[in-house]
């Protein structure tokens, strides 16, 4: 593909070696403003995180004897340890649910005829809402006295559970402090310095409702992305494969899935960065939770800075967040940039 394009594109007569300097100069104001608000500001926050005692009234960047002391304290802080655990588990569970559901629903919606627009609209509607609205509504739905539990009761799931297990099915959802699948003991052996882990490294059950609410809101995004990918597969390809005797599942396996791979990667990267940054939805839905079961780095930063007025701690935690997000996003941006150049 790219070769054909290159050949059909004879070297355009360029006035100057560096290309259009005028266009570059016109882009410069936006570039500089964004750079100040992104890179200069981040550098400032790094400065705050390394400073001994930065305060808004006395913005001193003077470093103490150990500039990394704030980071050391941060990683020893049980609350931040839970945050990292929660963020990790939340991201994995959320991606699994959202991407898989989005993919299969997109396949089904794509096959619909006249009802396609209706289904697409319904599944995407939650995406238009504010995270705060979603959090407020779902907090109510997961109230242990009602909501989903009442639904379980009347749908017969609860009584079925009772007859099998012999105990009442009444999940505490958001207020649960239980952690399942604790692997702390294992981690302590594997990771050097693992003895510093002060929280149970398992899956806090209270995260499950949060995952459900977030997946409810963002599944439509994944579906829309996959739908756009499916539409871009030429019909001829499908017909040709059918002509060659490919069955439905064979078509999906050998044509649709490989052709959807680039869009799947884009969707994964976008949803991963949303999950790592998640803040407002959980803040409105459950806050930090019982024993920080639903606390997230985003909430930790916000509360450290604006509730506890520990600016250095908040700054350090936000830089940790930034580094984690960059590990996911920067390789992707560089890769897609290179691809655009080749085209």
């Amino acid at each position, binding site marked *: 593909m790219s070769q054909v394009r290159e050949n059909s594109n004879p070297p355009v007569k360029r006035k100057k070696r560096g290309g259009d300097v005028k266009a570059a100069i016109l882009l410069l104001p936006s570039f500089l403003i964004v750079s100040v608000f992104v890179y200069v500001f981040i550098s400032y926050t790094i400065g705050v995180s390394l400073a001994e005692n930065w305060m808004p009234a006395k913005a001193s960047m003077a470093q103490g004897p150990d500039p990394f002391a704030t980071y050391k304290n941060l990683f020893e802080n049980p609350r931040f340890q839970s945050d990292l655990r929660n963020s990790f588990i939340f991201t994995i569970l959320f991606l699994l649910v959202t991407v898989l559901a989005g993919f299969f629903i997109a396949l089904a919606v794509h096959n*619909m005829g006249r009802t396609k627009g209706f289904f697409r609209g319904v599944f995407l*509607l939650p995406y238009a809402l504010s995270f705060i609205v979603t959090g407020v509504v779902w907090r109510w739905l997961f109230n242990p006295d009602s909501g989903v539990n009442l639904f379980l009761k009347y749908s017969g799931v609860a009584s079925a559970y009772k007859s099998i297990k012999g105990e009442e099915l009444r999940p505490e959802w958001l207020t649960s402090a239980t952690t399942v699948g604790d692997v702390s003991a294992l981690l302590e052996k594997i990771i050097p310095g693992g003895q510093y882990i002060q929280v149970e490294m398992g899956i806090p059950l209270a995260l499950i409702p949060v995952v459900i609410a977030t997946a409810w809101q963002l599944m439509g995004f994944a579906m829309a992305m996959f739908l756009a990918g499916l539409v871009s597969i030429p019909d001829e390809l499908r017909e040709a494969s059918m002509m060659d005797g490919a069955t439905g599942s064979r078509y999906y396996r050998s044509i649709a899935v490989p052709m959807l791979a680039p869009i799947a990667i884009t969707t994964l990267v976008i949803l991963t960065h949303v999950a790592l940054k998640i803040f407002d939805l959980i803040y409105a839905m459950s806050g930090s939770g019982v024993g920080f079961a639903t606390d997230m780095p985003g909430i930790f930063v916000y509360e450290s800075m604006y509730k506890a007025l520990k600016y250095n701690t908040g700054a350090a935690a936000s830089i940790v967040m930034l580094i984690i997000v960059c590990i996911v996003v920067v390789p992707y941006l560089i890769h897609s940039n290179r691809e655009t*150049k080749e085209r």
Partner: protein
Amino acid sequence: MSTTTIAATKKKPYKSAHARHGGKSRRVQFIILCFLVPLFVMPFYVMIMAALKTPQYADVTTMWLPPSPFSLDGLQEAWGKLSPNLMNSFTMVIPAVIISSAIGSFNGYLLSKFTFRFSSVMFTMMLVGMFIPYQSILIPLVKFLQLVNLYGTTPGLILVHVVYGIPITTLIFRNFYVSIPKEIVEAAAIDGAGILRTFFSVIIPISIPGFVVAGIFQFTNIWNDFLFGVITISDPSKQPVTVALNNLSGTQTVNWNVLMAGALIAAIPTAIAYLTLGRFFIQGLTAGSVK
């Protein structure tokens, strides 16, 4: 008009081929989708029902039931509490959307129609700005707003949304302009139009679809923002509606019917924008992702 007919004739053979091969599985898929619809609509149902109940019936144990004494008290009370903030949101969102889309279209035009050194590096560096966790720039942001005397004001919040909106609008417009042939720009250049004149007289008139896509996308993004609103404006009467809704939900004395009515009020503008212009919303969604 002509495009729709082309699409229709194109679709026909595909559909019939499909009916031949996947008729049964298609029916199964249809039934599965029909089962999923209530699951997705359910939170909306509960929210609207609760908003129309009297305080004593807006109880967790009866949340699934429709309002038996129908009441607008909840909506009234929520409106009384949130309407000033709703107005704040509008006065903040509309200028922010217009300015950030205008800047984005200009940048997108420069990046898609001209080649210059470092263009892709500059573009990538700007794109990073839409992925960073905004928590990591809050401290200097507040300092900066205080320095330019915009802290705690709506213009300050507009400025913040415009600057952090530039990456995404630039991306949307760049992807939009890539599909417009370069010849249009070259023809204008032969006629003696400079970069700016070509932009205003040739590019802008054909950019209406791009502006709708970027506009609707930015409208929902900025309307739904919480973090910038809560950080840069501390006076509750000046805060946007998302922040006010969260404050309301943190108040113990507030009844559920009021809270759900408040959630409904905060959700309505983006929901309407989405339901009327949903097609463009989907375009913005997919155009707004890096390809």
